[in-house]
């Protein structure tokens, strides 16, 4: 009787979980499996031909390299600027609320709009060149074509630094004030307090912020798409995948998407491992 009751509860529990299970299978698992299937399918049947095609394509190699460079560089810059601004905004000063709102503003702007804004800044007849010319300097005419990473780094960093800053600010505020006060009473300098107390306590928050941002940064698409379009000599994996898809090269597009998923997974897995090691220490 007791067993029956337990089984009934199990069935009831399963029935309750079923809508969520169906949702996850339909929305997440099925598309992922279908993507993998598509990446192995071609006119000749199933095989590795799509992967061979993209690995033989110089643009794919370039896109992969640029994606990793952009992700590492922008997340690094965002972390630097984000940490600095979080430290400043965690202090008590007049107008702190206003400054916090101001710092968050770029994050609130839609990515498409901010990408266009930076295209207008960096295009050869754009605001930057006209400013440089007015200052009497020789204008660097083709920023987007000759130094494409600069507009992309700037646009991406400007947009996403507030996100890192917000996460780190929350982390800074969760550090017990007693710890900082006792360090001060014991005669620790500001630098010592930062290195010995603030930084170690912030590492888990930093890693979490970096993991979230890195996933996002590796999937970068909108900013290079708006600034460079479908070519422009600076492909990233996101734009490469869409370009292949628009040419109706569905198989190679799916194969490139699978490679991107693998890169993101490796990055997340490595950082999670690092987080665990830090936590153990």
């Amino acid at each position, binding site marked *: 009787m007791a067993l029956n009751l337990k089984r009934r509860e199990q069935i009831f529990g399963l029935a309750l979980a079923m809508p969520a299970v169906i949702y996850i299978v339909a929305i997440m698992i099925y598309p992922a499996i279908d993507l993998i299937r598509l990446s192995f399918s071609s006119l000749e049947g199933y095989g590795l031909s799509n992967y061979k095609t993209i690995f033989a394509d110089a643009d794919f190699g370039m896109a992969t390299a640029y994606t990793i460079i952009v992700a590492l560089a922008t997340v690094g810059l965002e972390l630097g600027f984000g940490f600095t601004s979080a430290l400043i905004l965690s202090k008590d000063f007049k107008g702190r609320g206003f400054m916090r709102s101001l710092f968050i503003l770029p994050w609130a702007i839609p990515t498409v709009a901010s990408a266009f804004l930076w295209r207008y800044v960096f295009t050869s007849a754009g605001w930057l060149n006209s400013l440089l010319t007015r200052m009497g300097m020789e204008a660097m005419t083709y920023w987007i074509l000759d130094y494409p990473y600069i507009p992309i780094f700037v646009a991406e960093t400007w947009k996403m630094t507030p996100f890192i800053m917000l996460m780190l600010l929350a982390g800074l505020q969760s550090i017990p004030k007693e710890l900082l006060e006792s360090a001060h009473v014991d005669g620790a300098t500001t630098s010592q307090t930062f290195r010995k107390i603030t930084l170690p306590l912030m590492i888990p928050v930093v890693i979490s912020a970096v993991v979230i941002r890195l996933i996002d940064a590796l999937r970068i698409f909108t900013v290079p798409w708006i600034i460079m379009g479908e*070519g422009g000599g600076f492909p990233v994996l996101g734009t490469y995948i869409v370009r292949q898809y628009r040419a109706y090269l569905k198989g190679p597009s799916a194969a490139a998407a699978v490679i991107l998923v693998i890169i993101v997974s490796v990055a997340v897995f490595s950082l999670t491992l690092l987080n665990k090691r830090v936590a153990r220490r």
Partner: protein
Amino acid sequence: MRKIGAIMAMVVLLAPLVLPRVSAQQEINVFYQMTPGEDAIFRKILQQTGKDLNIKVKPINMDTIDTMNKVSAEVRAGGKGSVNVIFTDVTYVGMWYKSGTYLDLTSRFNDWKDKPDIFELILDAGIIEDKIVALPLRTDCEVLYYNEEMFNKYSVPTPDTWESWDDFYSAAKTFKEKTGTPRFGMKGNLYEGLTCDFLSYVWAAGGRVADPQGNVYFNSPETIEALNFLRKLRDEGLIHRNSRIWKEGSIVEEGMIGNQIYMAMDWPYAMSMLQGAGRTQWKVALTPPGPKTRATALGGWYFVIPKSAPNLDITWEFVKHMLGDKMQLLMNEKLGWAMANKNAWQVDESWPQWQKDLVNTQREMLNKYAMPRPKIARWTEVSYAIQMCFDRVIYRGEDIAQIVERTAREIQKIIEEG
């Protein structure tokens, strides 16, 4: 009282099952992909059509590839789907044919009494293997835009006096010498617009991509001649460098309105943007005369009715009405389009001069020099190969003959695989 309550409950419960069937007979879903500006006007046109036919026309602005995938899924599922009509670019006609999800309109079109006089070239581009895959709504082509004020200022002969590519080259060179900057721009970003721009030169040199039998002619001396000319322009710095990131919209906004270039080929929409920005010094001319001819890519929009379309009779009436004189003239007037129905190729005396010039130039290009893209089912892939050919030769400076051979092999492979 209970009985009345029970009947009312039944009515409420059954209503959702019955009502959609009633309304489905009066509603058709029309899918298309358009810019916001065109979309706003086009919705009004569709509303008018709905009023005329006493049906509800629901416009859905959606990516063409997504619509094709939706239709494929609906056809595979069997029964009736939710898509009645798709307005699709000429680029996708081959793909619709290959997908096999289209309704063959041949018999309906042949049985149509008092059918309008449709521009033959655009009608033909929708027919594959004697089947009408798609019927044209409108047509267009690229023309050459030039800044007349700058041509006069620097004493450069205007494009209407050009007799060969040499004149075109001289104009580009003079501008570079006198202003220190290249003043000729292209839509050189890697997308379909580049294919059209690039093929205009190949066609003008007498070349072609492939014939209807699937024979590839891309690796011809004519293609090499066209690429040699473009490479010369590029090597001498006569093509504006931003061409690499320009496409529809950005070339007008940044290049023409931004005063960075003085000449470029583009579609008719560019003139509305120029006029809207007060750049009235921009004029239109026929595309530059090449070694064999002038050339421009034939553009157009088509109706495709999927096999799974519900309410087929109403849908067909809708298509006929949209192709009729009344609606075609309305679209010609409101959107400035060159319509598929030749009765709507009118120039209204009340129009401003720039609009008359645009329509007349476009009409001449369409009648004499427009070239349809080859009827290849997997055109988007062929187009990709052509864009990459341009990319490798012009941007990366790779060997012309080798790249042309390689591209021809890629095209041949795509065609053979079907």
